[in-house]
């Protein structure tokens, strides 16, 4: 009550409240007592009306002073700046006298600010400014959905959609098809498989990109020219401008380099090194070739919703214009366009992870600030007598506040500088641990924006940490301080410090629960059985280009021969070959008919397919459930035999024995016979549902069914990590012209596929540990101070017969109250924020009781540990000593 009144009186100018404050408070208290005697209602009425009166007259007094007082104005020539400089000098001296305090405060704050600087640098580059194109928020990704059809929930549309959109959309300013694939680039003797793209020429205008050198492709170029990336230009051509106009072997054709893009142009992903020209011509359209990716630029005023509505309507006209089967027409009726900001599409779940991590570092900063605020508050308590004397001899309140703020600002400035240094050192390490799939991560560095952010954050932290203690200390009644010798400490003063510890505990628990959930997800993900064994498997690809390799069987013979050579390498247990190795490449899909569907040209069940040869299933540890795997005869002769996955068998022939049954790809005439059934595999990652997969033999019954340009070899060997050089020798001997690429161990691929989760988990783990430690330090500090402050009281209690256990219990109880409240708040916050982390989790509920309970117990345990030392100290108080000194 008294402190509230004092705060209200503080609204008046200093001179006024100095002269009349005490009297006003006395009158208010008397009036309030009278009002209370008249009843509760009039007490409330009085409190409200006099509070309002204090506020309005205080503010009026500020605007329109009636009292100037007699304090001498600041001597002439002392500017605000010079006063601050004096105060900062004082503060520096005071801080250097207390190196322990200073080190603790600066270190804590620097650590938290450094983490924030690093995370801000990443977020600023990757999330806030990731698309170096004009008006990036107008760029959208376009796909489709067709509920009720057998297409996936979301699918890439077909080229005819692009034509229709490109010609008729008003909501889209421009639109382009793009893709991404690897193929060979041949420059002189150097041959490599590199990532490239064959977009429509409208890509450049859609993105608003211009070449740094040369020109952009036009329709007349057909598909005979390329523009290359800045990276390729530097690494392959030594930044030689004369590369423009030269012709190289690119993806099986001679193409001319006509331009070099700037270093910012990296579409659709970081590793894309060149772009082949091309366009879609209406006369070449076969409707229904789904799987095309589209990027569009919205016109001014358009939103993703309006674009989606317009595109959905435009697509309805496609069957009329391009024809197609009845099932195509039906699908178009079900089709709806999906339009999403390109940024979301490119970042995927990485964005969520980064935002969560940014939130986490901000929490750590808050916790650190709470600790430092507590440190300053304890320090201010210790200096109350000193402040009271300064006040008595004429220092104004604002001078005292400035003096205290100078210290915290100095601490913050030191911490900010240290934080920038820390971030500069730690950022490269952090980025190396980050998953490679996050775009533009290699561009992250400590730039001006990050440094500015850090300094502003430091300034704000300094103010936040210093302002409350400074205000409180300067408000304390100085006369009372002088009288009781600065010893008096009212319990009311503790609520703020306790509140800070409650907040810290809550935030720390929130972070702990978050990282606990991620750890559980990671464990679950590691225990997933993907259907294959990732241990001791080495995989690579190479694409021979030789004269005699002209038809399916000759290719098959080449690969089968090479498989034999690989099998002969010492230490190799088995070898196999597959078109798309799991975790590295996706499989193709098509519709397959069983015998019952033979008569219906539109029928078919969508299945994925891939080609395989050698001992693939045994090498990968894929379980054979029924029948037999391929043998060499299957690879080279008719009739075509296939192996299907368990889910594929179930889809095609539910409840029946699939062995000996036949299936046919929709657009083909060949019937394949099922000879074996194998376990499902997770092709794209451990979060996937297993795919329905058809394994075709390397060479089917006809040369036209052959479809392998560059298969992936898999080798089971205990020497998977070190076998690459020997294999390279074999490849060089068999196909000197072919580069070896996509060289991995399956264990490495598995690790990569979990990289994002493990990265988020590790970072959040480090942050939450930091939060836990800081929270414990905060609690320890508050309790230690409380014990020191109450030494005399404890002495009296002991003298009056309290046992040591009583005293210890008293201290622990104080800590337990604070921690308990913090835990409750933390749990509530964790429940409230569970929706944010839910999408990052895997097979763990966002409310996982084990994690919530375990982490609460951990926090409580650490909290009690932090209580233990102060409790110990309290119980060792010597009553005689404490009473004599007190």
């Amino acid at each position, binding site marked *: 009550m008294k402190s509230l009144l004092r705060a209200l009186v503080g609204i008046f100018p200093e001179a006024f409240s100095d002269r*009349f404050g005490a009297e006003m408070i*006395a*009158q208010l208290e*008397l009036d309030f007592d009278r009002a209370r005697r008249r009843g509760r209602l009039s007490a409330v009425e009085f409190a409200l009306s006099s509070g309002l*009166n204090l506020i309005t007259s205080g503010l009026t007094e500020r605007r329109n002073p009636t*009292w100037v007082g007699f304090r001498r104005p600041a001597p002439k020539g002392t500017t605000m700046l010079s006063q601050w400089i004096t105060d900062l000098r004082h503060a520096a001296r005071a801080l250097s006298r207390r190196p322990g305090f200073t080190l603790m405060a600066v270190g804590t704050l620097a650590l938290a600010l450094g983490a924030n600087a690093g995370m801000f640098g990443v977020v600023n580059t990757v999330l806030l400014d990731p698309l170096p194109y004009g008006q990036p928020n107008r760029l959208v990704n376009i796909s489709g959905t067709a509920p009720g059809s057998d297409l996936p929930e979301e699918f890439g549309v077909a080229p005819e959609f692009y034509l229709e959109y490109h010609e008729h959309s008003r909501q889209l300013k421009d639109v382009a098809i793009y893709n991404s694939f690897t193929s060979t680039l041949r420059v002189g003797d150097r041959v490599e498989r590199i990532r490239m793209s064959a977009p429509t020429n409208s890509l450049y205008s859609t993105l608003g990109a211009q070449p740094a050198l040369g020109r952009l492709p036009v329709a007349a170029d057909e598909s005979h020219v390329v523009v290359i990336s800045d990276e390729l230009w530097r690494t392959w051509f030594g930044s030689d401008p004369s590369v423009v106009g030269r012709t190289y072997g690119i993806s099986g054709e001679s193409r001319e380099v006509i331009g070099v893009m700037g270093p910012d142009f990296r579409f659709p992903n970081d590793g894309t090194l060149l772009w082949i020209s091309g366009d879609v011509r209406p006369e070449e359209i076969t409707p229904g070739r789904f799987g095309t990716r589209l990027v569009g630029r919205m016109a001014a005023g358009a939103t993703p919703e309006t674009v989606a509505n317009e595109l959905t309507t435009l697509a309805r006209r496609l069957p009329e214009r391009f024809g197609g089967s009845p099932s195509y027409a039906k699908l178009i009726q079900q089709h709806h366009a999906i339009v999403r900001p390109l940024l979301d599409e490119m970042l995927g779940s990485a964005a969520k992870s980064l935002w969560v991590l940014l939130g986490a570092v901000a929490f750590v900063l808050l916790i650190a600030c709470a600790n430092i605020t507590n440190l300053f508050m304890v320090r201010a308590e210790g200096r109350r007598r000193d402040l009271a004397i300064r006040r008595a001899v004429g220092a104004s309140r604002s001078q005292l506040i400035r003096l205290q703020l100078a210290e915290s600002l100095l601490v913050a400035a030191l911490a900010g500088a240290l934080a920038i240094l820390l971030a500069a050192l730690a950022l490269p390490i952090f980025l190396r641990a980050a998953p490679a799939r996050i775009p533009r991560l290699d561009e992250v560095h400590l730039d001006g924006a990050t440094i500015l952010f850090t300094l502003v954050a430091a300034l704000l932290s300094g103010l936040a940490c210093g302002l409350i203690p400074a205000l409180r200390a300067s408000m304390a009644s100085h006369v009372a301080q002088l009288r009781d010798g600065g010893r008096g400490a009212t319990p009311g003063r503790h609520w703020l410090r306790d509140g800070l510890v409650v907040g810290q505990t809550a935030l720390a628990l929130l972070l702990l629960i978050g990282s606990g959930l991620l750890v559980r997800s990671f464990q679950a993900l590691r225990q997933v059985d993907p259907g294959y064994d990732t241990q001791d498997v080495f995989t690579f690809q190479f694409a021979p280009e030789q004269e005699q390799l002209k038809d399916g069987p000759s290719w098959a013979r080449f690969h089968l021969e090479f498989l034999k050579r690989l099998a002969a390498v010492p230490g190799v247990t088995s070898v196999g070959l597959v078109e798309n190795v799991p975790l590295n490449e996706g499989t193709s899909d098509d519709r397959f008919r069983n015998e019952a569907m033979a008569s219906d040209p539109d029928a078919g069940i969508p299945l994925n397919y891939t080609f395989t040869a050698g001992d693939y299933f045994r090498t990968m540890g894929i379980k054979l459930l029924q029948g037999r795997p391929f043998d060499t005869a299957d690879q080279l002769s008719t009739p075509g035999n296939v192996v299907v996955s368990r889910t594929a068998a179930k889809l095609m022939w539910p409840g029946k024995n699939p062995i000996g049954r036949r299936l046919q790809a929709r657009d083909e005439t060949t019937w394949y016979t099922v000879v074996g059934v194998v376990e499902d595999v997770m092709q794209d990652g451990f979060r996937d549902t297993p795919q329905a997969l058809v394994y075709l033999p390397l060479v089917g019954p006809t040369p036209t069914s052959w479809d392998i340009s560059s298969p992936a070899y898999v080798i089971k060997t205990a020497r998977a990590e070190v076998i690459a050089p020997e294999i390279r020798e074999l490849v060089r001997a068999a196909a000197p012209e072919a580069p070896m690429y996509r060289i991995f161990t399956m264990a490495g691929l598995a690790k990569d596929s979990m990289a994002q989760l493990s990265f988020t988990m590790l970072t959040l783990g480090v942050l939450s540990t930091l939060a836990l430690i800081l929270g414990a330090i905060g609690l320890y500090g508050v309790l230690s101070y409380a014990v020191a402050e109450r030494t005399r009281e404890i002495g009296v209690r002991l003298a009056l017969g309290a046992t040591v256990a009583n005293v210890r219990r008293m201290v622990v109880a104080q800590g337990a109250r604070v921690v308990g409240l913090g835990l409750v708040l933390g749990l509530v916050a964790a429940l409230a924020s569970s929706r944010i982390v839910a999408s990052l989790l895997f097979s763990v509920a966002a409310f996982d009781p084990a994690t919530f309970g375990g982490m609460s117990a951990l926090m409580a345990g650490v909290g009690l540990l932090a209580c233990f030392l102060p409790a110990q100290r309290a119980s060792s108080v010597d009553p005689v000593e404490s009473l004599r000194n007190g």
Partner: protein
Amino acid sequence: MSNLEYHVLLALANGQLHGYAIKDAVESESEGTLAPHAGSLYRVLARLMTAGLVGEAYPADEPTPHPGLSRRYYELTAAGRKALALEARRLLAAATVAEKRLGLFRGRS
């Protein structure tokens, strides 16, 4: 001069008073129409002091209290006494005019 200012001067015309006593006097002498809150009262007091109409008093019979916790006493200065007298005369004159008019009014009806 505002009503409250007038009443504060009026209260102090009776002798030296401390703040709360001023408030009580104002309340009773205005027959309850004025019950100043602390904020308003002390702003008026400050204004009167700045204008030199009220000064701080140090009564001889009151023991010197603790500094800071003191009841401070206030008294009229000579200027304050003059200002009060002027205002009282003005009010009286104004009231007389009003009385007459109202009486006239009453007589006509």
